[in-house]
């Protein structure tokens, strides 16, 4: 039931955005012409690039759900993306060579780095009862400093050498399906992983015993404890899942690009934060978070392509802040995104 409400809510938000868009197109002079030109951009290659850009956002968003549902707010998603993006490229650079196999090893390296940092974060939050918000913020700030630091140590500049990127693979049979096959089933491994992770996450969260425990751990840890399930273990799992997801997201982002850029906000450029917005907008539904991620990534891809269209003057900066404004609007005006009851609080077992 709650699920249906979420779906309706998400649909409502999407409809609202569309209406706002149409409204804008009609009232702003010249906007309609621009809109039509933009429609021309939307094709299979555009959809593919949007899907690639969805990877880090959706993984961060879905991962964040697991941590927060378990009762640990992981605000360090952006930091984990940065760590895994940097590590994946570093591993790739050290092993050299090319091919999908080497890149999968690099992806694994990125995931491992993210998991190690996440484990430390989990220990700090669960054993040492650190303030989760401050600890998460620290993870971000440390990553933001460490990745360019490491880049300079290895490559002598904040940007890594180019190490080559994932090639698109075509799934046998499925890639021949008209329309969809070309977009969904001819893609890089991180994209496939993401497409698999969406239903998996939803199933894990809503249809398994582990999912029930996870939700109970965030809503009512005492009862879960009384039922004989270790809240500690469940929370560790939840947080580590967020690390796993961010690991794939960050490494996928970097290996899709074939390089780590460490200047400013680094290559992730706030996508972890956007991931955070997506699950708040979708009220902790992984499918909703993915859809919101795809929407924001679509805007991002649009913004990249607009620059090539003559006669269209749209500020890319203003398009970039849409996700942030959207989440503010949702939090302030659209029904309550309800945090798990005990998220952010330590749980002291009575044993």
């Amino acid at each position: 039931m709650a699920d249906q409400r979420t779906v309706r809510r998400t649909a409502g938000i999407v409809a609202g955005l569309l209406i706002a868009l149409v409204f804008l197109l009609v009232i702003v002079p010249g906007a309609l012409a621009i809109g039509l030109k933009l429609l021309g951009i939307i094709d299979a290659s555009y959809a593919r690039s949007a899907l690639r850009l969805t990877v880090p956002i959706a993984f961060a968003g879905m991962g964040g759900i697991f941590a927060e549902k378990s009762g640990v707010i992981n605000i360090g998603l952006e930091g984990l993306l940065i760590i895994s993006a940097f590590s994946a490229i570093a591993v790739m650079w050290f092993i050299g060579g090319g091919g999908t196999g080497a890149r999968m090893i690099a992806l694994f390296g990125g995931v491992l780095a993210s998991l190690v940092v996440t484990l430390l974060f989990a220990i700090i939050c669960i054993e040492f009862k650190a303030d989760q918000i401050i600890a998460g913020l620290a993870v971000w700030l440390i990553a933001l400093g460490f990745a360019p630091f490491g880049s300079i140590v290895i490559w002598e500049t904040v940007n890594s050498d180019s190490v080559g990127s994932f090639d698109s693979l075509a799934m046998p049979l499925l890639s021949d399906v008209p329309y969809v096959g070309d977009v969904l089933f001819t893609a890089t491994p991180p994209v496939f992983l993401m497409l698999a992770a969406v239903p998996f996450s939803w199933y894990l969260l809503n249809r398994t015993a582990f999912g029930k425990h996870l939700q109970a751990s965030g809503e009512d840890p005492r009862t879960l404890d009384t039922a004989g399930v270790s809240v500690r273990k469940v929370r560790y799992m939840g947080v580590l899942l967020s690390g796993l997801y961010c690991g794939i997201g960050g490494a996928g982002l970097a290996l899709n690009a074939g390089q780590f850029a460490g200047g400013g906000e680094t290559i992730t450029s706030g996508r972890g934060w956007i991931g955070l917005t997506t699950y708040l907008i979708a009220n902790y539904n992984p499918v909703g978070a993915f859809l919101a991620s795809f929407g924001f990534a679509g805007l991002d891809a649009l913004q990249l392509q607009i620059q090539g269209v003559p006669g269209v003057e749209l500020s890319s900066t203003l398009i970039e802040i849409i996700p942030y404004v959207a989440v503010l609007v949702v939090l302030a005006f659209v029904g309550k995104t309800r945090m798990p009851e005990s998220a952010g609080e330590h749980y002291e077992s009575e044993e």
Partner: protein
Amino acid sequence: MSGQDPGGLLDRLVDATVIERIVISVASLLFAVVVGGVIVTVSGTVATCREPAFVLADREFCYDPIELYRTLFDGAFGSLINLGLTLQETSILLFTGLSVAVAFRAGLFNIGTQGQMVLGALGSALTIGWVAPSLPGNIAGTLVIVPLAVLVATVVGGLYGALPGVMKAYADAHEVITTIMLNFVAMGVAFYLVRNHVGDMTTDSVQTTPIPEFARLSPTIDGTRFSVLVLLFGLLAAALIYLLYERTVVGYDLRTSGLAPEAADYGGVDAKRNIVGSMSLSGALGGIAGAMYVLMVHYRWETDMPALGFDGIAVSILAGNNPLGVIPAALLFGALKGGSLQIDFALGIPPELVEVLRGFIILFVAMPEFFRMIGNYAGYGTEGGETDG
């Protein structure tokens, strides 16, 4: 309701005794220094350098951790010019640190100081740009334009801080999330405005036109841009805020409204209005930091302002959110910034290391339980141990 409060620990941090907090802060600092040293030493085996700093067990180490901290200290205080650079950073960190601390005192976590500072800086730079041409270019002009620029920045920052306050008080939107998002919005909007409408169109960089000579705060130390006026203003602000919270009813109301809204309401205080008040005050201080940056450091608004607002979080947390504690904490982070140039220049160690240190300091301060456990383990158990409940 309880799920909305991220800070069981916030309460604990506020409740801990002053001595306990100083011990935790100093210990955090030491731990961060050790971790930083380890990171640098290990990185030194990966880096390539002409001459290794030292060789151990046939491995070449490019960086020497002892030398690192010596150089860092030297870079921060070693000469009058270095000292000026350090104090210049410190002066602005006083404001951003106070900004975060003021909100924390009321149990609100304002991560949005950066955005408030960016907009405050833009507000002051633009005001100067508009008003300066109609003012005499002498001391009289300075006396009008500097306070005006600070006032505008205060108002802009205050309003932008009030926004998450309103969202928290009236829509129950978590201020941590809203302030993070508002940072991005502020940076994006400022970038857009300067680039397309109010910026210096004669250059490709996204910046405003430089402010005239008479609107700049004259440097106290030659060869730097440090103005002692800003430092004194910052110290005064710290003292005033300390008095506000310790000695006045207004300060008391601001605190309780954030920490225990029901209790405040019961006591006849409008908790919602006070939450907005705390966030406005916090934002105003962030705005002032932005004005100081324009008046003293950069003489114009430019995109990619330094992360002084995020540093403010570190300053406030290290200070245990005490307005007076902000003073030494700001000096410490000012020194780290001031010294970071030197470690790059003299030792070839990437200055980003300082950001890593900043992160670890925050991390260690955030886990007082860690130190209590170590204390207990070593047999110096603090009485009672548990303070949460």
